[in-house]
């Protein structure tokens, strides 16, 4: 995975240290710390992981091992409007794959990528729990139910206007 080099400013580092301190710099709380850190930055670049490792007195390898293990954590920034297509079984048998193909075709990105202008990122998730509305697509927090491939363009247009 291509890592993005960013320089953390002192303020951000202080915020990260505060998060670690909130959990008593206990390395057993690593996953809770990562949740909060991702909430703050939107993703977990290598620099963030280095700070956390130092604060919790553990190795960067351990932190990276955990970050890369869990699908909720990401090392690449998401788009302004993150699009998630539910690939739970209920959505799959009701045609989620065709909906995904249409998003890929229009946005010209693969799953896990972000469009060049940083506007949209595309990902799959497992079961939103709205199986009655299958297939389901989420843009940010908003849920779109019963999405058909020919409805994909309308969804995207909603955000392109903004």
């Amino acid at each position: 995975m291509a890592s993005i080099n960013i320089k953390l400013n002192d303020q951000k580092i202080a915020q990260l240290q505060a998060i670690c301190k909130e959990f008593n710099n206990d390395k057993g709380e690593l996953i809770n710390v990562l949740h909060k850190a991702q909430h703050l930055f939107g993703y977990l670049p290598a620099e963030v992981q280095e700070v956390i490792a130092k604060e919790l007195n553990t190795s960067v390898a351990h932190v990276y091992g955990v970050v890369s293990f869990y699908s909720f954590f990401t090392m690449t920034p998401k788009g302004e409007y993150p699009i998630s297509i539910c690939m739970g079984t209920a959505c799959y048998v009701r045609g989620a794959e065709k909906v995904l193909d249409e998003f890929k075709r229009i946005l010209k990105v693969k799953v896990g990528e972000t469009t060049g202008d940083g506007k949209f990122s595309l990902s799959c998730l497992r079961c939103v729990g709205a199986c009655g509305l299958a297939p389901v697509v989420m843009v940010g927090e908003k849920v779109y139910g019963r999405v058909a491939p020919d409805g994909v363009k309308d969804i995207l247009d909603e955000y392109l206007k903004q």
Partner: protein
Amino acid sequence: MATFKMHLLVCGGTGCRASESENLFHNLRTGIIQKGLENDVQVLTTGCFGFCEKGPIVKVLPDNTFYTMVKPEDAGEIIEEHIIKGRKVQRLLYVNPLTSEKVEDSKHMGFYRKQLRIALRNCGFIDPENIDEYIARDGYAALGTCLTEMTPEQVIELMKKSGLRGRGGGGFPTGLKWEITRASKADQKYVVCNADEGDPGAFMDRSILEGDPHSVIEAMAICGYCIEATKGLVYIRAEYPLAIERLKIAIKQAREYGLLGKDILGTGFDFDIELRYGAGAFVCGEETALIHSMEGFRGEPTVKPPFPSVSGYNGKPTNVNNVETFANVPVIINRGAEWFASIGTEKSKGTKVFALAGKINNVGLIEVPMGITLREVIYEIGGGIKEGKKFKAVQTGGPSGGCLTEKHLDTPIDYDNLIAAGSMMGSGGMIVMDEDDCMVSIAKFYLDFTVEESCGKCAPCRIGNKRLNEILEKICKGEGSMEDIALLRNLSNVVKDTSLCGLGQTSPNPVLSTLDNFYDEYLAHVNERKCPSGQCKALLQYWIEPENCVGCTACARNCPVNAIAGERKGVHIIDQATCIKCGACMEKCKFNAVFIK
């Protein structure tokens, strides 16, 4: 609460909230206040009613009116017509799809008639954010009984007698697990609730936590009393924000009422609960992996023994039960072991919650007594297959389960029967498939999932599943051979026999069960290079039948890649080299001129 004459219950589950049930609730409440009825009519947000297919749901009590697909703008009419004038809003009533009759009383809905709600007893009835409503329905009475009238041994004995088995998939007897953990001596023990529901297409635990969080808290405290633990941990998916929120509120309320914390009910028993968040790893449903994840490590399983009941979280004895298992506990204490044991089959007692989804009319959350048949679930509760299509298979047990067919429809559902049929109970996902689903692709879909979710610790699972997936991919592309089918079966058995944890030991089940039940479909892919259901893209081509084509240009206009040529009122032709096989032309053609070859 008893002073209200009427109650409007609005579903606040994730599915209904996705269809604006929050705005609907807001409109109903402001409408009631505007009419000056706030002392007579109570408007409540509840947990999931289960009937997700037709959400958002509004239920009116005491007359049991069941409104479906209600929009925020319908609030005014419900208040004006139903509440004030006493006339039900006919257009919002549920219509029985078989008789086309409107159902006036929800008790007469086929969806509910065969259900028995124990774990879901409060979902859709109470406001999950108000502890008083839980208490009004006998909430925390079981905890009181245990702490003041029973010894831990007596409670464990009662649990054993009830026959309750773990609802997370394993089916291990709950009372026995508590007894073993009690027997382990340590200065600190833990009660863990596994709420890391990872099966794609399953939402039982989430609905219980969203609809009735106190039942889980109460049961965890009872378990703590039995095993001598003072600390409880709920390991919950970070992807369930609403369930987390409601659980946090419930824990706070329970503390305020002295039902959690120090010296509960003045009995000297201490117990408190904390939350731990999962981060999206299916394997963390496995006990030992879950415990490692709670400790801040990668969620990799370890060899058992030692079992968590001997050495678990931080090396201390830990009792792990799933959400639904816990939700059953208070009722069993209140109503007795004999009552619970009278429900179900010989070896599987009580009920099971299923998330019914897929190609079925009534998608939703159901709870049925063990021993009910798949036919009753699919046709009577589920209302049959969508669009009148033909039933093909039902998949139970998620990625670890198998696909059952027509011949299994009359098998009574319980732990042992499902395993004998080549599937398993699992946590309760139940996905129905129709004639349009290709079973080879379904097997591949599940393998895609397991390959991604395998933690990579042991070779059979990490490498074996990957190879299985590659063989399936080959077959779906029409490049498979008979040797591949033999290899598929052989390798599946090796992965099953040699993997360390439950994930690898069950991951080949979808492959094996489809091989057993749909061997013909595999043969068609391999020998004839055809996908009988027309799902495997590489094996199909779209063609236009010249005799049926009237030249309306609908297909050409809707083709996303401009692969269709033809003059207006002339026969159209699809360029096979450009076609991406999306099927849009077939969907748009009104003259049945597009067909799959």
